[in-house]
């Protein structure tokens, strides 16, 4: 179990407990966090669960695979150095306390 914080563009934040093995995307969807569309439901095929990982993050995140890298070129909000697809970040104790920022738009 890990606590993940999702911060919206207006500054409001939601902290949720996400089960080991779930993704940061699924943590948001199961807890009604707005702004994570996840049109494909986690198939790494739509690019609509885009998040910006907090700049101060020091937690080890999963390595980005070429598929995620490709999809991040087509996100609705601009890709930045800290962009990730939240469906591709699995949750474990190692990422407890992770903070992600939800972009302005996903579609």
């Amino acid at each position: 179990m890990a606590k993940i914080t999702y911060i919206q563009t207006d500054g409001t934040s939601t902290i949720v407990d996400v089960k080991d093995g779930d993704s940061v995307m699924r943590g948001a969807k199961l807890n009604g966090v707005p702004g994570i569309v996840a049109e494909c439901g986690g198939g790494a095929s739509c690019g609509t669960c885009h998040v910006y990982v907090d700049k101060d993050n020091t937690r080890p995140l999963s390595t980005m695979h070429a598929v995620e890298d490709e999809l991040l070129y087509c996100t609705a909000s601009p890709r930045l150095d800290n962009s990730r697809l939240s469906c591709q970040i699995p949750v474990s104790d190692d990422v407890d306390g992770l903070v992600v920022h939800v972009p302005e738009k996903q579609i």
Partner: protein
Amino acid sequence: MTTGAAVPGTEAEETFPYKRQCPFTPPKQYEGMIEEDVSQVTLTGSGLRIWTITGYHTIRTILTDPRISASRKHDNFPFYFIAPPEFRTETSFIGYDAPEHTATRRKAAVTFTNRQVKRLRPRIVEIVNNQIDKLLEMGPVVDFHHAFSLPVPMTVICELLGIPHDEHEFFIKHGTCLLGGHSTPEERQAAIVEVNAYVNDLITIKEREPGDDLLSRAMAEYAASGEEYTKRDLFNMIRLLMNGGHETTASMLSLGTACLLENPDQLKLLLDDPEGMIDPAVEELVRIATIGDTAIPRVALEDIEIAGKVIRKGDGILCLGLAGNRDPEIFPEPEKLILERGTRKHLGFGYGLHHCIGADLARLEMQIVWTTLFQRIPSLRLAKPFDEIPRKEGAVIYGLWELPVTWDA
């Protein structure tokens, strides 16, 4: 609360899959099933008693639940025809669970991302125009399904995969056999053996001389990841992408074209503003046809309580996308074709880890076809009444066996 033991159905009971009322209207039996959301049916062929899920939200919940499996190896896997052993063990990633699914799918997925697919636009425009030229030379009257809908996606997927043009007929024949619903188990098994033998030879060629194609890239991906592959891994992947990449899109091209011709007011909206309307139009046509209605089978890995029912560990489940795509809360007046409301929310490409890998490629092909076809052949129309056109009832991928069309020569 009820529980669901897998017991054989009785002879008197009507078995699943049921006939659609029309290609765009779900079977009559779905009405009661939609009311129940989670209910049970008996499968034709295997006689298995399985669960069907019909609610839009319930389907999405089930398809993202880690307690369900897509593996064909389970005893109660809901095949509704008699499945040869190869269907159980040789499926590639469509029938794998994580982490095997993730690793295998990634070998192919890079080719199908939105960015890569967009690069194919000029070539697909050329393929579509070439096929329209051929269509015009052949008729009128022409069977649009065989003269246009099948060759267009077949040419696209063959070029992507690295399969020479002269083999298209071979793959169309075998694809129809494997997914068409009218073949025998023996014919399906023979088709798999023949396709595997062909792809096996192709892999040997690509190993010697890699090209700019998915097969060569997948082999390079395996090499880069340090994983060993067997030819079996590759030919299962290629067979999956061949079948998934042409039969599905071909079905949509014929059904979508027929649907637009049968709804001239909607077609006019598209023709008046093709640029603005084509994206929602494609999504709405995919929703209304939902050709993969019976193509999302799963098995419960644990007892799952959902919608007041308990699905027992080991029970087979079918998520009926056509029913989910008729949820009036998501799609008001769901039986109506309303192009302008089209969104990507529908379940026509599935949902979750197994969401259609080629969705963006299929979208692009449909967009190009429906913005080109009616412009090049403005008088295009059906050559016989729509309700007389034979349909692929009971097929894994729903569609039409033919689509006779005509135009003012």
